[in-house]
């Protein structure tokens, strides 16, 4: 079966192929079922589902639960919180890790392998390994006037820093692999021409890394947006939480019935879904860039 598929651009329709399509379509539908169920529940009024049960034919389908969930819980406020954390975190991570990658891949100093090792290993650690001292550290660092809380604890800055520190390992690894594939003559010629190291990095190497950077930016945005743990522990004021972590508090406080919970959870997922559908290629290639080399 596969031998024919390899040689001809389009396979003639055969029973085995049809069976495969049936299986894949069925499996794909089953895979989407939990989400479809959530959408279905979210579109029905609570009064109707509590009367008729959740497994029932709908009388009304509308987006009221979505608008209610969004306005009652002041969701836009939490989306803004997320943006305040995610945008600087993604940019800083890419900036810092590309500098490390540039150093590691272009300058053959003895340190570079050890450096890359430290970064990559750090990225693989479970977050809970470092959280206890990190939590204490954040409480100890006073930043009067810089953050609202006067400390690194309970501040957007604190979250940005830990995201950057944690994620830069993975990015440095991927980017240094990518930069190593660029011909050495590029920077050598520039060096001979007297271009400074900074210019080699900023004007020569970095522009060539755009595909890898785009992939990583997509991946990082989704990861940081989806972060639940750091904010749960390092933010104490509910008001300061990014949307993903805030969801936990909002449930119970504002989302009092399952229909609203479904709507709230789906609203939270929308930005990641948009990013995924628009930048699917970047996301997938980012995920496999690191894995393939490893």
């Amino acid at each position, binding site marked *: 079966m596969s031998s024919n598929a390899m040689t001809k651009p389009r396979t003639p329709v055969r029973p085995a192929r049809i069976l495969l399509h049936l299986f894949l379509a069925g499996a794909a539908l089953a*895979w*989407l079922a939990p989400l479809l169920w959530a959408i279905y529940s979210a579109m029905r009024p609570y009064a109707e589902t509590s009367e008729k049960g*959740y497994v029932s034919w709908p009388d009304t389908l509308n987006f009221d639960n979505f608008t209610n969930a969004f306005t009652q819980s002041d969701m836009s406020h939490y989306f803004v919180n997320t943006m305040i954390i995610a945008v600087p975190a993604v940019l800083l991570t890419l900036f810092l890790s590309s500098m490390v990658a540039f150093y590691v891949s272009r*300058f053959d100093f003895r340190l570079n392998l050890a450096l890359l*090792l430290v970064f990559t290993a750090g990225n693989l650690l479970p977050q809970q390994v470092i959280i206890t001292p990190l939590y204490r550290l954040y409480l100890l660092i006073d930043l009067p006037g810089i953050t609202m809380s006067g400390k690194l604890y309970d501040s957007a800055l604190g979250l940005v820093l830990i995201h*950057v520190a944690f994620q830069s390992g993975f990015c440095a690894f991927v980017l240094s692999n990518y930069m190593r594939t660029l011909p050495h003559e590029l920077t050598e010629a520039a060096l001979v021409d007297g*271009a400074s190291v900074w210019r080699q990095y900023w004007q020569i190497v970095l522009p060539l890394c755009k595909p890898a950077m785009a992939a990583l930016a997509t991946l990082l945005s989704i990861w940081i947006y989806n972060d639940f743990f750091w904010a749960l522990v390092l933010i104490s004021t509910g008001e300061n939480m990014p949307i993903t972590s805030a969801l936990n508090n909002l449930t119970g406080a504002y989302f009092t019935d399952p229909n609203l919970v479904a709507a709230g959870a789906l609203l939270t997922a929308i930005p*990641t879904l948009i990013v*995924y559908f628009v930048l699917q290629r970047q996301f997938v290639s980012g995920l496999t860039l690191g894995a393939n080399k490893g």
Partner: protein
Amino acid sequence: MTTNTTKEIPEAATVPPPGAAPANKVPHGHSRLLTRRDRITLGLMAGLPTVLHIALVWVTALASIALAFTTWDGIGFDSIKWVGLENFKELFTNNPQFWPAVEHNVIWFVVLIVIPTPLGLFLAVQLDKKIRFSRVYQTAFFLPVVLSMAVIGFVWQLIYNPDTGLINSIIGANEPGKYIDWIGDPDLNLWAILIAASWRHTGYMMILYLAGLKGVDPSLREASALDGAGEWQTFKNVIFPTLRPTNTVVLVVTIIEALRAFDLVFVFNKGAEGTELLSILVTNNIIGESSRIGYGSAIAVVLLLISLIVIIPYLVATFRKERRA
């Protein structure tokens, strides 16, 4: 090579650096041409990110180890007391949650590697056959991977909720007296959560394997088919062995995922009886009622040691390969 690279370089600087010799023949002779300012720039470029990373990740990891041998209530440094192995002793012998947590982390890994991983590989192999709608199927299977674990937790609660959930509504177990408590029952809840975790993990594994399969030389397949090997034999004898690097990544990713598991359980039932995990125990010692820093760190050290057993051999192998390349 140099000919097509020169046009990439923006206008060359007019003044050559003092003492700059033609370096084309020196493959790694960069450092000789560096001015003092360049050296400082380089130092900062590598140094700043390293300091941030080491301070927040490695110093804290080491601090976890140090604190594991102490008791501390977190108020002032004077109250830190050295207690030797006391925390570990209590953890291993006197904590009813510890061994169940270890067991659940192990189960988490075993389930992920036995069910969603082969399933992801299977889907990847099917989707790798130049098949129509391949992208549509891929998108469906991969969709859960882009959702946060928190959202996944809430979505699956709509399925598992004893009163209003899909399963109990369908099988008629949503009435008092007939409840099947998928979230609260300690015999059921871990498995219920693991289904949700597998739902996500399958897509992740599928994408990793799809990337691995793209790297398999098509002529290998053709040769195998010419030899008269069937589809399964070709996969077993030709394709699977060439997927070895992917398998290593998959194994490491799965172990790390099993050790990191937290969000899903926390959203589901905060790690109540039946779903204790090491990560949950560590966190409970910070944000829970009792803030026992030394004790929590001891659990973190256990987690760290297990992680390092996986991470170190993997990285050593990876980087050894890289150095050879």
